[in-house]
């Protein structure tokens, strides 16, 4: 059997990041004991041995890292090829009763397009065992919670991407689960929608629920919880606090590209700062490539520079913003 190449052992500088695997806490809400999952000859997750404590935990990894596989294992949607997944003290595979206590918001759209939002959420409540009356009450409450009351009588097929995402969230919470698992819940949401969902996740955590939320965008997870699990190539590569990740990123040169109308003038000014370790002018003389070890400082400084010097900055991008770059730092 061939498998994906595995990352090298993790070496992390900040003290709070776990260099060696943390001992698995069997009483934690989610416990994965040496869990692996193969799809034919392709490995989805590889020997994951971790416990996810109560509260809100972010599952962070680049696309294709194995987040969705891990979530499906955690929610009993797929069977582990090896190992065992225990959720809220019970084995989750082939245990439908546990779904009274778990709420799942899948990553892709999964619903009946011909139903209205209200019918959809109500039906999922009925499937969870609530009476017709209770299901109606709960569906309305959850739709209100995700700000969809105004569209409750519209067919889901006519919903925007953001509305679809919110109705999925409503169905995940309608049966009042102890553990809510959200797979990329912010995908497709506009900034206002994102903020609302982030608030919602925080609120769930404050209510004492356990929430596992996946994302491939660091700042999104950071806004929801300080505690994260980093997954890469099917393995948990780190567990700890978001600021440690930030610190690690900051310790490495951060590449930023700037397009402006006077690259040479801007380059001269930027080299005055000690966090800027390299500035290169691209061939077209319209772009600068800057390497900095303190990206946050750099980002706050650039607008001031633009005002001060009168240089027109057309675009500023960073390839390092994507999580692949973070993982590159982490596992090298």
């Amino acid at each position, binding site marked *: 059997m061939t498998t994906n190449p595995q990352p090298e052992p993790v070496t992390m500088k900040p003290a709070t990041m776990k260099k060696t695997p943390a001992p698995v806490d069997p009483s934690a809400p989610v416990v994965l004991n040496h869990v692996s999952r193969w799809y034919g000859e392709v490995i989805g997750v590889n020997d994951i041995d971790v416990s996810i404590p109560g509260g809100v935990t972010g599952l962070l990894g680049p696309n294709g890292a194995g987040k969705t596989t891990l979530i499906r294992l955690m929610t009993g949607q797929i069977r582990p090829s090896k190992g065992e997944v225990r959720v809220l003290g019970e084995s989750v595979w082939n245990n*439908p009763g546990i779904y009274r206590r778990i709420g*799942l918001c*899948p990553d*892709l759209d*999964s619903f009946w397009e011909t139903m209205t939002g209200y019918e959809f959420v109500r039906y999922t409540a009925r*499937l969870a065992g609530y009476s017709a009356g209770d299901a109606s009450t709960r569906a309305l409450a959850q739709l209100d919670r995700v700000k969809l009351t105004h569209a409750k009588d519209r067919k889901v097929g006519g919903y925007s991407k953001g509305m679809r995402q919110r109705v999925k969230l409503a169905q995940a919470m309608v049966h009042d689960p102890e553990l809510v698992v959200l797979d990329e819940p912010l995908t497709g949401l506009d900034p206002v929608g994102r903020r609302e969902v982030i608030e919602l996740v925080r609120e769930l955590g404050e209510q004492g629920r356990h929430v596992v939320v996946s994302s491939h965008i660091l700042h999104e997870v950071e806004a929801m919880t300080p505690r994260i699990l980093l997954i890469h190539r099917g393995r948990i590569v780190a567990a700890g606090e978001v600021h440690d990740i930030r610190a690690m990123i900051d310790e490495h040169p951060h590449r930023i590209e700037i397009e402006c109308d006077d690259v040479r003038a801007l380059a001269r000014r930027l080299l005055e700062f000690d966090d800027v370790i390299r500035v290169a002018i691209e061939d077209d003389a319209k772009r600068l490539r800057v390497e900095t070890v303190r990206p946050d400082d750099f980002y706050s400084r650039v607008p001031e520079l633009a005002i001060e010097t009168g240089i027109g900055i057309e675009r500023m991008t960073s390839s390092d913003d994507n999580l692949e770059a973070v993982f590159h730092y982490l596992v090298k």
Partner: protein
Amino acid sequence: MALYDQGYRHWDGALSGHATRWLTITQHGVRQALRNKWLVGLLLLSQLPMIGLSFVAYGMLQAGDRIAQMEGADAAAVRMAEGLGADFFMKLVPMEIFWVVVICAFAGAGLVARDRESRALEIYFSRPLTRLDYLIGKFGIIFTFSMFATIVPSLLLYAVAVICQPTMGYLKQTWTMPFALAAVSIVISTSASAVVLAFSSLGSRYRLVAVGWIGFYFVSIGFAQMLFGLTKQPEFTIVGFMNNLERVAIALLGATVRREYDYSWMWSALVLAVLTFGGLLLVLRRVRAVEAVK
């Protein structure tokens, strides 16, 4: 000062038991399907054969009155039981089967296929449901409509036959007929529902599933007729889905066995049992929360 726990507290009201969870799927599915006016129209059309045969029964009643005047009430009852007996009700069966096939294509082909297409299985199986609950729930939907197209016209036709009689003699002669008609309806509905669900679980485009199901029905009949025509061996008709349903119906109603069905009805029952259980097992195997390569 008393400090109260602010932590999460799960709703502690009563939830319905697991045993009836499939019923939620069935109820919901039936309600949703009945919103489709085309389906409602088909269900009503499926009663037409019964209405037509009711006129035939009424015509026979007129003849019965004349017999009663000439030969007496008892003789008339016996003659009516013969005329409105098993062979008369057997006329309804092929038409019922036809309508069941049409209704299954319309209301059954998408039952699993649409869930697969819309990835709704992931939602189902993130609830306290087993695959068996799902299967029974979906089966219940199409079984309900199939029964509407079979047991309702059968029993109504029998009721018409009884009501039109001047005496209770006919009822005494044919009192087992409603049970036989119910049994035939159950056999037709169960077999058709299971097979169409199996077809539905094989695809994710319900129109293709519907075409496949109707194709299976007509091709199997054509194949059976062709083999019978070539060999003159009645046993070959067991390759036809409708032929097996008819053969079992003849046995249950006690109707006259036609030449192409001149073999033991047990063979047809066996074929139907294999198709029914095989179909349901196939659905169980095909239905997964997430489709993953093994």
